[in-house]
């Protein structure tokens, strides 16, 4: 018994040295496996949520993502919706967009983006639309996050 434990101990220790090598040699493989096996993605609070629609304006387009209210379990009261304008090279100096994210045919808010001054103006037309949370220029275009609050 003692001997068996002894051997098991040393064998395990050697296996640890091998594990170190495997960790680095197989890093790409294991990471890909880990990602696909768990199926995890980046939280929509960071990624902005999935794209649901894109409005074509000819030279450029407006990309609308789904409203994000995701909580740890269920939904939160506060959330946001991310809108993008791409590509950056084809954007006119001023963009005016009416966004209907609820899909009821009525505009939920209007957004005026001044790409030269880097200013955005929000006109809420739905009580759940609160304010502009972020407005940044990224290499593909402009990104705006609009704060939403569920009205009960």
């Amino acid at each position, binding site marked *: 018994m003692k001997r068996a434990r002894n051997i098991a101990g040393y064998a395990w220790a050697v296996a640890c040295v091998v594990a170190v090598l495997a960790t680095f040699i197989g890093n790409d493989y294991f990471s890909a496996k880990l990602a696909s096996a768990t199926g995890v993605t980046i939280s929509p609070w960071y990624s902005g949520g999935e794209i649901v629609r894109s409005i074509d304006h000819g030279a450029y387009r407006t990309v609308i993502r789904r409203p994000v209210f995701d*909580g*740890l*379990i*269920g939904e939160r*009261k506060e959330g946001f919706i991310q809108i993008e304008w791409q590509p950056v090279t084809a954007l006119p100096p001023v963009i005016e967009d009416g966004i209907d994210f609820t899909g009821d045919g009525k505009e939920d808010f209007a957004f005026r983006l001044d790409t030269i001054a880097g200013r955005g103006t929000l006109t809420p037309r739905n009580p759940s639309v609160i304010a502009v949370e972020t407005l940044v220029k990224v290499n593909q275009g402009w990104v705006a996050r609009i704060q939403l609050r569920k009205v*009960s």
Partner: protein
Amino acid sequence: MQGFFLGLSSGAVCAAYCAPVLIPYLLGEGRSVLQNFSALLQFLMGRLLGYLSFAVFAWGIHTSLPQDIVHRNLLIGAAYVILSGLLIFYSFFKAGRACPSAGDQGIDHRLRESRSSLFLLSMGLATGLNLCPPFLLAVATAAEQASLLQSVLFFLTFFLGTSVFLIPAPFLGLLRGFSPLPVIGKMAAGLIGAYYLFIGATMLAGGFYR
């Protein structure tokens, strides 16, 4: 869900406050783990009752709060500041004496002798209605919930969260020795208190600024 986490985070404080009362009782005269469990269960039932009645109360507060965001933020922010301040204060300086069921030792003692389940229930109720800081923090958060149902749910989860820390209590009979959990819990409560303090303060500042 938030209730559960608030409960979890401050539950250790609850345990730190109430364990001194509960544990000597539970450990009373070397009862078995099973007996301890049934005692704990009665105690928890009382606490749940206390909480649920508060849920109704918190909902009442909610409906009477002014509806516009600025004023609400001011009120809730102020509540956060005061309560988290208390949480920090208690977590560092005052642990052990804040539980009301620790209150009147005389009555306690006589009741303790009688050991009726009524006593345990009422002790639980007393802790449930207790105005200890983690609980008040829960009230402030619950006041933000929209409906009666949500408010009740919130307290239910809060109850579950805090109970996590009381569950090991019966086993304390087995390991009477020192356990670092209350110290860790108090430290964590201090940190979370500081966080809520900041949120409250910015809510207040934001409210005035507007």
